[in-house]
């Protein structure tokens, strides 16, 4: 009988402890959790004239880094600037018209396709539209 009472009290106490831990843990988790970058994702507008032919412009997009490139043939590309290997930010090489990741020498073409080095995937493409002399990313 006494053993049953002890077990019951033990379970009750453990339940209360779990409730208390949840009451402390949930606010703590919410306080520390990063605010979703998707929530903060707004559109980024870049004037077309800011990107010369063969040039690139880096900017912050959805809490991360992105890049707009105007190819020599005049075409535009918007890509994530985060290397798919270990997350460094790729650098635009104007002379060779490609991206170099300085961390482990990964190379990507203007369209983000892997051309050399360890990156496993191409750079992610970002949607954009052009109207009235402005490029709207997102």
């Amino acid at each position, binding site marked *: 009988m006494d053993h049953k009472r002890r077990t019951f009290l033990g379970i009750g106490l453990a339940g209360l402890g779990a409730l208390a831990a949840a009451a402390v843990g949930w*606010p*703590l988790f*919410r*306080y*520390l*959790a990063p605010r979703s970058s998707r929530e903060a994702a707004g559109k980024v507008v870049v004037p077309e004239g800011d990107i010369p032919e063969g040039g690139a412009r880096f900017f912050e997009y959805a809490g991360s880094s992105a890049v707009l490139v105007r190819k020599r043939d005049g075409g535009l590309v918007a890509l994530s600037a985060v290397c798919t290997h270990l997350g460094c930010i790729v650098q635009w090489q104007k002379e060779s018209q490609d991206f170099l990741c300085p961390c482990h020498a990964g190379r990507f073409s203007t369209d983000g396709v892997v051309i050399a080095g360890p990156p496993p995937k191409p750079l992610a493409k970002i949607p954009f539209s052009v109207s009235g002399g402005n490029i709207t990313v997102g």
Partner: protein
Amino acid sequence: MTLLKKIVDWIDLRIGVREIVRKELTGYLLPRNINAWYSMGSILLVAFALQVLSGILLLIYYVPDADKAFKSVSQIMNEVPFGWLIRMFHAVGSNMMVLALLLHMLSVLLMGSYKRPRELNWLTGFILFSLVQGISLTGYLLPWSQLSFWATTVATNSASAIPLIGPYLVEFLRGGVLVGPPTLGRFFALHVAVIPLLIAALIGAHLFLLKRTGVSTPPFGQPETPIPPPADSYRYEDHPGGIPFFPNYALEDLRSIALYLACFLAVLFFDPYLFFPKDAFIPANPFVTPAHIKPEWYFLANYQTLKLFPNELIGLSLQGAAMTFLALLPFIDRGRQRHPLKRPLFLACFIAGLLLWIGLGIWGHYS
């Protein structure tokens, strides 16, 4: 269960953990007539730990820059999920910790536990009390509100009454002629690094002294025995036949801590702005002094004393004398008797002092 036993056996073989448990927990005997007031130390340990934890959490979003501090605190309160809870936990917690500390000191005074051979315990405790006042004062400035700014202006200005070095001391404390961005930098460093480290070190010393001297026997609830003569060599005060710290008194400690947390959380959830006048919600403006700037409740008696004396030096000297008297009390009050009812002069001074402190505080609040 067998896995747990195996782990304990493995550790025990290497560091003798069962012997530590026997010596420090189950075999650590306390006086049979020990009372709930002996839990105040444990409550304070928990309160300090909670302040450190909530303070670290606030550091994640707080910006110690005069241009950004108020905005960052507003952001914590209004935008960060549960930021209001962490901030109010820290702010209300500091007040509750001061209250617990005062009750701890009052119980030690009343039970005469500061007396020989525990003079050093009292002294380290008194320094801890001063450090807690210091950490409260420096923390007060950090939100960079009107209240913070002007309360710090008034508090630091008090030092100007000290002859010769006073004006320079004020400038040194502030890092400039007036309270400004350099003051915030200094107070921030003191609040988050220097004073917490000192408090932790002093807590260590306080506990070490407690461990070496042994827990005092309460003067109540036991048959009267003749007071033994003072020992002329070191002697640990043990309590043969007493109650074990674990599980008996540890449960009492837990109950007291739960009671403290219940009171603390009641204030936190039902009257969180109890300690916040409206100036705490207005950003600091160095060109506009608010009408009735008042310090925290535990500084109100000091504030009113300074107001009562037209000469600030006399007011400060009186407070300094009172603090020195209290700090050195074990060396002044050297009688062996510890029961308060058998120390009528002490009891009269204790009640008069307490009433004076409360009276000055109420007067300061409504003046």
